[in-house]
């Protein structure tokens, strides 16, 4: 039952919602209800900031079923600023030089697309942090 499985996970996937251990304070992702550090129950939801950096990465040229549409694509281990290491795709990186330690931020994108008759699965990916502060008055002349 893929629909039910994706539905159960969508809250975590859409917004990077994990858990926090009320005993030792460790932030947990993905949610597992038990703290991996102190084994105490940990069921309090925690929404991560989505900020992190690339810990390691690789490019997928031979994708599994459901991901063919996006290949080649980059997968990475992202170290979130709150601590957990998350496996996810990098997106918006064509033409970018990807490096270990590169700052990234979470975005919600299409994860897989099961054809024109199936559902679309959305979830977290990471992209290079967008630089803010662009000059708002710079306008090109009309063509």
């Amino acid at each position: 039952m893929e629909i039910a499985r994706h539905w159960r996970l969508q809250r975590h996937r859409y917004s990077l919602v994990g858990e926090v251990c009320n005993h030792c304070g460790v932030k947990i992702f993905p949610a597992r209800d038990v703290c991996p550090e102190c084994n105490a129950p940990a069921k309090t939801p925690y929404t991560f900031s989505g900020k992190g950096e690339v810990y390691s990465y690789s490019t997928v040229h031979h994708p599994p079923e459901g991901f063919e549409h996006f290949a080649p694509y980059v997968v990475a281990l992202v170290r979130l600023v709150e601590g957990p290491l998350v496996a996810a795709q990098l997106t918006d990186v064509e033409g970018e030089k990807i490096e270990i330690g590169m700052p990234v931020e979470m975005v919600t994108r299409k994860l897989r697309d099961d054809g024109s008759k199936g559902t679309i699965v959305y979830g977290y990916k990471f992209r290079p942090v967008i630089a803010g502060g662009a000059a708002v008055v710079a306008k090109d002349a009309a063509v």
Partner: protein
Amino acid sequence: MCVPRPLPTCYSLGLGRDKLEASHLKIMKPNRDVGIVGYGAYVPRYRLRGTEISRMWEGEQGCTPPIKEKAVPGLDEDVATMSLEAARNALKRTAIDPSRIRAVWVGSESHPYAVKPTSTIVAEAIGAVPHTLAADWQFACKAGTEAMQAALGFVGSGMADYALALGMDTAQGRPRDALEYTAGAGGAAFLVGPAEESVAVLEGSTSYVTDTADFWRRQHEHYPAHAGRFTGEPGYFRHVIAAASEIMAALGRKPADYAHVIFHQPNTKFPRKAGRELGFKSEQLEAGLLVNDIGNTYAGAAMIGLTGVLDVAEPGERVLMVSFGSGAGSDAFDLRVTDAITARRACALSTRDYVVRRHEIDYATYARHRGKIRME
């Protein structure tokens, strides 16, 4: 073949405008003062230059394209993901708990599903569920401002304290059609709420709608069809100019009263022409005229223009926004910017931040991104 220009070479204005009577000057403003509490934009990073399209269909000597370039969504983007980022930007400019949002309304003509709401995906992801209304709106390029009108009324009635209205599109143009040059991607989100919390307060709005078939897409058709130059005078100009004229007349305003004006922008010519006809100066259009850099974002076009204006507007300035949707109709909004704008706009990426983030692609990559390559 040269690209047909959408602007009629000769037309006359005045359909409806010169027949205004006092009874028609009905301005909409709820008893409870309302406004825009938070705003956010989104534009995908990919850009296709107009010259690349003309090279494809006209050869190296192709004629000058109507705009410089247009935004193209990534392979993993659609109206749901783009709406979500705009909504998150709008929420960053507020301090409210998303569970207090009583409506999430997404206007678009490129919803990912024919049946299943985009709005529930957005509502779930921002944390507005389950005690919220959620629906998708459809009215060509004015679906987003229609959602805004409803959100302003919904909050104004007291039924809700906050409502989120979005206009977002990943517009499709038939290959080689004139619209292929301009059909872009992007849009904006506005969190509507009480006036005392707003960055821009609603002074009044109006709507001008007729049954005018200038652009349409039948069910199961991939690309829209249009009536060529007919979309100019009976479509765009009739409705935009009537809505703008009516709201100014009803509120006792003249063009010089506004610091900024935003018109629906299917190209650069139409909004500039409408502005001239109404008596606006080109400087008043500048901050909200984005079509040359991102293309026509359809349901998002006027709304993302307003986000560009709010990024630069000063407290106390008046702003006029007039949308247009084929089919056809215009919504006009008279807004007054408040002191809150100064601190609030820095809380999220500006519209310009998204506009300057660009990665140029060629026509083949564009064809892949837009699903124009048949794989099976």
